[in-house]
């Protein structure tokens, strides 16, 4: 009960950051920024380098980072902590525990195991131990189910795999979506427009694993062009990335199309044409920027959707990424693996969203001054 209250209090505190004054935001934001840089570098380079780099990063952030970014940092870092707390609570609510197996474990053995892995019986205690591990000891802790390996050792080989897959899927969805959408928007109500929007509807309607299974059958089993599943070469990457990308590409195509149609009716486009600019230049230089704004604001949710899809697609194509570890960890109640993958995923999402915010401010001058 008190844990749930703490969670609610945390959410309220998080919401309260909306009232944080600019001056305080700047100080708090740079402090938290320094902390995050320090903790992350701690994993890579050890304690002394981490402290030094953290201090430098904090000072640089205080001096140079726009308020827009610092506001996000002030919100997101506590949010990350809250998420770890919420995840811990949820995991502890789930029936079973990491030490329950077919053979009955004696209470003494279980107590010894709990002490060894740092998994006490109450969720708040575990949260305390976990946060200390993360901040003071600089480790994600030992995996409970995979004997003798730490979570870092499990994630380290899987991380680049997931990043490569996710990035490629992201790039593909933007390229395919923008091309289709702009093309359709410029030739509104033509046969090409209807065809690409029908395609987009299919992309939105079909779950990625159905698309992926279709690819598998056609390209691997019938045509034999691509390997069925697994990992190792670029050719292994094609089908999972496409299966992940298509649903998002479809949404981006729709956004780009309506954006294009709207922008092309604006006064500044008429002005550009009246100046005698060639049509291709009008589109590339003037219309594209306006079209990109709704697309860019969708990229944050798109990244989340790609991660959601990646759980399924990684399983389908036997890709050894982090999604598999998360799902396995959740089913086996391997608390530290679940938390470790969750932190890495959340961190990537947060980083990506920050970049999207910056891109947004660059594209839409109205956002820049407001510091929103």
């Amino acid at each position, binding site marked *: 009960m008190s844990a749930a209250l703490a969670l609610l209090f945390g*959410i309220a505190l*998080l*919401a*309260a*950051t*909306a*009232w944080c004054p600019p001056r305080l935001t700047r100080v708090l934001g740079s402090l938290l920024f320094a902390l995050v840089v320090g903790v992350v570098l701690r994993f890579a380079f050890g304690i002394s380098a981490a402290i030094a780099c953290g201090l430098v990063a904090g000072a640089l952030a205080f001096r140079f980072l726009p308020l827009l970014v610092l506001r996000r940092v002030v*919100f*997101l870092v506590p*949010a990350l902590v809250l*998420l770890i707390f919420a*995840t811990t609570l*949820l*995991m502890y*609510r*789930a*029936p*079973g525990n990491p030490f329950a197996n077919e053979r009955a474990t004696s209470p003494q053995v279980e107590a010894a195991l709990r002490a060894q892995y740092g998994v006490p019986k109450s969720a708040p205690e575990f949260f305390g131990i976990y946060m200390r591990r993360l901040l003071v000891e600089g480790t994600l802790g030992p995996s409970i189910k995979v004997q003798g390996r730490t979570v870092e050792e499990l994630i380290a080989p899987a991380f680049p795999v997931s990043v490569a897959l996710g990035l490629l899927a992201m790039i593909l969805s933007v390229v395919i979506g923008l091309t289709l959408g702009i093309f359709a928007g410029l030739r509104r109500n033509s046969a090409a427009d209807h065809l690409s929007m029908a395609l987009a*509807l*299919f992309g*939105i*309607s*079909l*779950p990625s*694993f*159905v698309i992926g*299974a*279709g690819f*598998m*059958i056609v390209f691997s*089993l019938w045509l034999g062009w691509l390997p*069925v599943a697994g990992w190792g070469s670029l050719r292994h990457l094609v089908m999972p990335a496409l299966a992940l990308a298509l649903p998002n590409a479809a949404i981006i195509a*729709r*956004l780009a*199309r*309506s954006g294009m149609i709207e922008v092309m009716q604006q006064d500044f486009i008429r002005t550009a044409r009246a100046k005698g600019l060639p049509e291709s230049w009008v589109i590339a230089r003037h219309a594209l920027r306006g079209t990109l704004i709704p697309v860019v604001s969708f990229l*944050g*949710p798109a*990244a*989340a*959707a790609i*991660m*959601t899809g990646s*759980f*399924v697609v990684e*399983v*389908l194509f036997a890709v050894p990424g982090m999604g598999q570890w*998360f*799902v396995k960890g*959740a*089913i086996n109640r391997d608390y530290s693996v*679940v938390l470790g993958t*969750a932190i890495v*995923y*959340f961190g990537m*999402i*947060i980083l990506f*969203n920050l970049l999207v915010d910056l891109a947004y401010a660059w594209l839409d001058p109205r956002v820049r001054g407001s510091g929103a």
Partner: protein
Amino acid sequence: MQKSPFQLAWQRLLRNRVAIIGALLLTAIALACVFLPFLFELDPNLTQPALHHQPPSARFLFGTDTLGRDVLARVLVGGRTSLLVGIATTAVSILIGVSYGAVAGFYGGKVDEAMMRLVDFLYGLPYMFLVILIMLMFSETARGDMLPVFLALGLVQWLTMARIVRGQVLTLRNQEFVLAAELLGASDARILIRHILPNVLGVIVVYGTLMVPSVIILESFLSFLGLGVSLSWGQLVSDGIAVVNPIRSYWWLLLWPSLFLGATLLCLNFVGDGLRDALDPKART
């Protein structure tokens, strides 16, 4: 005679041939899933090991699976789950999303900013995390009980609805008829329920319809990962994928559930898009 906005919308909808075909096909699929298993006494769990992997024939229209179960029966009964999850979860998320969005839009200002900040943040998360964790909480008590699925999916699906409703309420908030009601001394709750919500109803219907397919997709993800609670299309597709191999093709195990799932999702999107064009002609995307 002057036609009411809803009559006009209805006319626009009837003229949209794709949406009508979608609605008819959807009704057909739903009726088939609900009634056919009763009428023909189809049993999705009856195993006949001697008759495993039968291709489609007059006796088994859709063939049989690895344990000799009738695929037609499984597809129809699985459809019940998928459709039920889609509709019930949408109801849950409409309830949460509309109340949240209406309050945020109605009070505006800092309250709105704080509430929406939370929504924006949750929106950016890979919600599958939360769904999987919430599903785990119920994993042992819940074999065959679908309430946890509704809750888990509903808890992550209300965000879009909250955003849309909040935007609509924000613009309606300062219209003359709301100010008039306020002036007459109507309470906040009365203004929201009697005066503002009826005007948002169209949008709620449109996005509610479009939410059903995304919920069905999410449920199929869960089933695919082995976290579903009962027989559904997602689970059948996953079973079908499991037997895909280069040597022998059991195409009917994959084709039929995929076809039903895909057709249902497409039809729902057709109907949703049609409703949007009819009720809200300006918001075409």
